[in-house]
């Protein structure tokens, strides 16, 4: 049967489309309106102090568009104009300083791609498979190209005194979300960023200025950054004691668990991205990242871990940035148990969920980087499961 989409003249081939400026700032075409952030309502008391999830099941490549990059607020996303923006550096410095937004733009700048992952990503899965979709199990992550000034440059401008061992960073919003960071990290690769993916930060990501703390948990990436205090000690704020500490089975808790361990997930096929084309060529794809270095290798299994194949990395792994992997197979139409396993440049091998639970128990909430399983049935539908 000839295809009428080809043999008949279609309206779009005859009439005219939109002129330029129909949408001065473009949005995705309406056919993609399901590619959106989503919230899990029962998780939190209110959306103002809550989190939503990046639709990683529907994206490809490695750069997350800002418009669908997950949000996490503690007192809501505030509106702060560049003209009203002030950044203070105080504490154990020779010259306490105030910078305006314009001042920041006059320092030498860097461009770097980094992932930002919430420490609680996959946190609902500690006790077992719970949420059906890569967006919900692994979507508290985004990966963007940041433009900004190295924090080191600003600290040197103020002159850090020798008693200074930590910095305390806080935001301009009501939560302030203060966190302590060792001076060593602050002087290493931390950025004071004002652009992401080439354009101004979105309001929900801390416009006009946020902190970028490569490889470390997202809570440290303070949004609406307003103050950096050099201190002799950690301040032990709410966000580094009552939250973002990891309780072990014996009731003691780890604190200062800053690095995000190597992790990966297959984004398609997955529960929200089933196979619709039947047997034959199938692209299996996913994301891998490590807060300790670059992704060196990703292995994929389709039989629940009996045998593994090394997947193809779309690009060589980059330091503390997301890698995209592909495994191109001939699917025979039988059920699959899909898993991926990341290896990073420090030699760390992504553990199974059971291996993690053996060390940490079930109450950690944060830092769940265990291997994820999708059970794909003969119809191509996928479900979040755990297997022996």
């Amino acid at each position: 049967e000839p295809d009428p989409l080809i043999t008949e003249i279609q309206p779009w081939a005859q009439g005219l489309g939109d002129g330029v400026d129909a949408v001065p700032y473009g949005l995705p075409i309406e056919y993609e309106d399901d590619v959106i952030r989503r919230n899990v309502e029962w998780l939190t008391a209110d959306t103002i102090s809550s989190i939503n999830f990046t639709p990683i099941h529907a994206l490809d490549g490695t750069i997350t568009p800002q418009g669908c990059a997950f949000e996490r607020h503690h007192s809501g996303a505030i509106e702060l104009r560049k003209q009203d923006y002030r950044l203070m550096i105080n504490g154990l410095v020779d010259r306490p300083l105030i910078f305006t937004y314009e001042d920041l733009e006059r320092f030498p700048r860097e461009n770097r791609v980094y992932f930002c992952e919430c420490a609680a990503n996959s946190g609902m899965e500690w006790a077992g498979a719970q949420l059906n979709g890569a967006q919900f199990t692994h979507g508290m992550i985004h990966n963007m190209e940041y433009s900004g000034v190295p924090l080191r440059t600003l600290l040197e401008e103020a002159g850090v005194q020798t008693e200074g061992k930590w910095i305390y960073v806080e935001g301009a919003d009501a939560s302030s979300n203060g966190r302590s960071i060792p001076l060593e990290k602050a002087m290493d690769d931390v950025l004071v960023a004002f652009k992401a993916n080439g354009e101004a930060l979105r309001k929900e990501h801390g416009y006009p200025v946020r902190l970028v703390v490569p490889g470390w948990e997202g809570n440290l990436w303070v949004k609406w950054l307003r103050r950096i205090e050099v201190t002799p000690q950690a301040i032990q704020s709410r966000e580094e004691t009552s939250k973002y500490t990891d309780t072990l089975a014996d009731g003691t808790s780890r604190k200062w668990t800053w690095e995000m361990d190597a992790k990966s997930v297959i984004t398609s096929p997955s529960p929200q991205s089933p196979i619709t084309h039947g047997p034959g060529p199938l692209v299996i794809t996913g994301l891998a990242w490590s807060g300790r270095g670059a992704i060196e290798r990703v292995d994929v299994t389709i039989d629940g871990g009996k045998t593994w194949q090394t997947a193809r990395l779309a690009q060589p792994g980059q330091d503390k940035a997301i890698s995209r992997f592909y495994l191109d197979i001939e699917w025979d139409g039988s059920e699959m148990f899909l898993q991926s396993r990341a290896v990073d440049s420090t030699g760390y091998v992504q553990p199974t969920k059971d291996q993690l639970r053996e060390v940490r128990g079930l109450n950690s909430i944060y830092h769940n980087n265990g291997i994820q399983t999708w059970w794909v049935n003969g119809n191509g539908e996928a479900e979040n499961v755990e297997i022996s």
Partner: protein
Amino acid sequence: EKFGLGRPALPEEIAAWNVDVAPDGTGLPEGSGSVEDGERLFSDNCAVCHGEFAEGVGNWPKLAGGEGTLDHEDPLKTVGSYWPYLSTAWDYVHRSMPFGGAQSLSVDEVYAITAYILYSNYLVEEDFVLSNENFLDVEMPNADGFIVDDREEAEAHFWNAEPCMEDCKDSVEITMRAAVLDVTPEEETDEVATEQEEITAAADTQEAAAPVAAPDPELVAAGEKVFRQCASCHQIGEDAKHRVGPVLNGVVGRKVAQAEGFRYSPALQEAGEEGMVWDHETLDAYLESPRDVIKRGRMSFQGLRKDEDREAVIAYLRSFN
């Protein structure tokens, strides 16, 4: 290399922002507050979310209880059972609470509220007064419950493991399925969307027929922005539900304390029974300073100082009548 950018921070500026308090008491201002005062302040400012006894409301944080549960399934982590430093509680209340009214409490009020939180955790007696003088004497039960990140030692076996590639296991059995729990948010179906469109259309028709002049759309839009301050506690619109505060649909011009299914404070209920009405004047006064209108009400909101903000938000509320 110095760039000579920025300007010196003035002492008053540093004092205004540098309010963090460290575990050793660095940064703690002089002052004091009693459990007794704290109980009243907590009831007025905190109880809407955290409960009268700090036991928590709904999904909002519980601040008391949970002693001895940290090694149990689903431990209850509260100020008493989990927080290692009292400075953290003082600092957070001082800087970020109450929710939607941060930094509206005085130093003495923060001491009093912190004292009450300690009392609600059975850590101090009812006649206790907390001050900068005795602050470091308070013992936090879980002070020794934390270790510095030891993953590189405790999880050393995750490094340089030889990942198995062939014949890694004999069989694979499913041990748990997410579909059984069924807690994944559901997609809105087309049917629901159509239904909602119909409802909206019907509402539009009604509005057109109403004799009262509709509020100025520009003012309504401005009010929608101002309403964000209210949205932490109140919902409005077709799918609105009671949260910390009641749904506000139809509130303008209605008798006080009428939203069905909402538990009002005795003070507000009484005002309603006495015939108080949310007319423009009353609402304006209430929004400017809630406790000047309802003395023992529960709405912990600092008020809208600007006339134009109140005007806008009333117009926004009216657009849901």
